């Protein structure tokens, strides 16, 4: 028999309580992975959707709190295009719009000469012809969900659009977006001559000095803020709010799991006062008694964490199956997040077991044995 077997034996004395505690840790870890993964995935998906169009920089109205919150005049496109080092500029007007089924989808208007059209992977159909209006490209996931094909029509804000093609992008956002001509989008949303942001393609995106110079040149124009695509959400207040809420909830869940371990071990220590006294009486040192209780905390946390990883991955799939989430973000917790969460839960569980262990070693063996 070794310490690990002894700890297992102790935990098996109250199987229901041990299982429930491990289940509590599992739920905490699972919630943490899912919620933290959600906030991470939102940022990753937005970045991926921008990069997928071939944009190196995103230009938005300076001072706007969120990416889709402001508009800039479409005419700024021409001024930015003249900056040395800029290969192409494309305006994009984005909005959530109601379909004829009264569902909201993300619609994006692209200018006729946008470089975005060059990077569109088609599942079926064709791209819109130059000057063609009231036509739409529908992302493959959305098309499947709505059972639409090239040649069908889709209602957007009460206007009918002919679906000329189905796109097959990689990012979940682009797989659920409807692309229409910019002019149609401006008309539909009563926002003529403006775009939500401008996407810039650089001649030398690998040259950090040139990238920095172009950013400065764009911002010199006034009223505009440029950032690399991977940083576009860094100062976005809505994403910041989502990040703060989901991560706070994730940490609360994890701390609740730790408290469950602490509570269980505290109860176990109080129940086993006499036995702990016997251990001291037969020569167990305080370090060894502490270690034995901490091992129990480790076992509960480790089993809970392992089950929590499964719950977290499964929970992420469940979130993806909810249309309101799954159409905009693919929640995919990274291996780094999963490993870090499991290790953190185990570490916190061990930390949480030190208090009951400390209590156990503080009591006099004589009192524990009922001799004083």
């Amino acid at each position, binding site marked *: 028999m070794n310490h690990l077997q002894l700890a297992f034996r102790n935990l098996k004395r109250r199987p229901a309580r041990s299982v429930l505690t491990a289940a509590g840790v599992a739920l905490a870890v699972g919630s943490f992975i899912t919620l933290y993964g959600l906030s991470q995935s939102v940022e990753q998906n937005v970045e991926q959707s921008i990069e997928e169009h071939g944009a190196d920089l995103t230009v938005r109205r300076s001072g706007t709190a969120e990416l889709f919150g402001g508009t800039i005049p479409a005419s700024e496109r021409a001024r930015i295009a003249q900056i040395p080092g800029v290969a192409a500029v494309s305006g994009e007007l984005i909005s959530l719009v109601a379909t004829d089924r009264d569902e909201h989808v993300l619609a994006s208007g692209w200018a006729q000469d946008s470089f975005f059209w060059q990077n569109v992977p088609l599942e079926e159909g064709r791209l819109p012809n130059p000057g063609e209006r009231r036509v739409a490209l529908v992302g493959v996931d959305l098309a499947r969900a709505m059972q639409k094909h090239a040649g069908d029509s889709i209602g957007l804000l009460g206007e009918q659009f002919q679906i000329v093609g189905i796109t097959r992008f990689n990012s979940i956002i682009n797989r659920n977006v409807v692309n229409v001509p910019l002019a149609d989008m401006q008309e539909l949303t009563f926002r003529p001559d403006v775009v939500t942001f401008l996407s810039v393609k650089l001649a030398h995106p690998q040259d950090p000095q040139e990238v920095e110079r172009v950013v400065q040149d764009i911002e010199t124009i006034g009223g505009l803020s440029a950032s690399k695509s991977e940083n576009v959400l860094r100062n976005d207040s809505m994403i910041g709010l989502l990040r703060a809420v989901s991560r706070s909830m994730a940490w609360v869940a994890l701390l609740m799991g730790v408290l469950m371990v602490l509570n269980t071990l505290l109860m176990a220590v109080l129940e086993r006062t006499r036995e702990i006294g016997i251990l001291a*009486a037969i020569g167990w040192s305080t370090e060894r008694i502490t270690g034995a209780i901490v091992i129990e905390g480790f076992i509960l946390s480790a089993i809970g964490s392992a089950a929590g990883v499964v719950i977290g991955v499964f929970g992420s799939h469940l979130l993806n199956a909810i249309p309101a989430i799954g159409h905009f973000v693919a929640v995919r917790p990274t291996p780094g997040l999963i490993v870090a969460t499991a290790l953190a839960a185990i570490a916190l569980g061990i930390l949480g077991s030190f208090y009951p262990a400390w209590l156990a070693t503080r009591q006099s063996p004589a009192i524990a044995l009922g001799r004083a």
Partner: protein
Amino acid sequence: MTALITFEHVSREFDGGRIVALKDVNLAIEKGQSVAVVGNSGSGKTTLIMLMCAIMPPSTGTIRWNGEPVATPKSWTSLRRSEIGIVFQDFNLFPTLSAIENVEVATFGTGIDNRERKRRAEAALKAVGLSARETHLPHQLSGGERQRVAIARSIVNRPTVILADEPTGNLDSGNGAAIIDLLFDLHQSRGVTLVLVTHDAHLAASCARQVRIKDGRLTEQSSLRRREVIR
């Protein structure tokens, strides 16, 4: 010759001095002796045993082990692990551990590996005649068998002294006599010092030396090798 355990003016108080369990006790126990600590309930017998194995510290006075004061709790822990075997009246076995595991648990921290731990636990159980009951849980054993497991646990680390606190208190007379025989066998065959707390005068008479406690004071010490005489 230096005494194994020496009490010098040892007193033990409880409840802030309201209860005085032991008063100015002076006592020396030689290695290899069998000593009975006799007295009525509440006289301070158990307190004396608890002090001997430093489960509680004295309020005043000095307790020496082989002539040396044992200063730190760590030193006492080490002595309890390697030099002292304790047998309680109510067995104090771990209910979820089998007989052999209850014995093995005393060997943790002695620096021996798992295999040696198991071997020693088997040997200890064999010494108390319980080889056939190794895998039984305490609730599957009789009272006498449980106390044998407790004795096996007390000898597994080959101690110098066994401190037995009313070891037959929860047993019927037949099992009690068998346990006493076992303790004396261990005392005689292994040269283990035996300190036996009892209120049974007949049992006390089996020991070479009797120490009587009354109201926390040592009132009488006799040094007759009664068991040898009886035998």
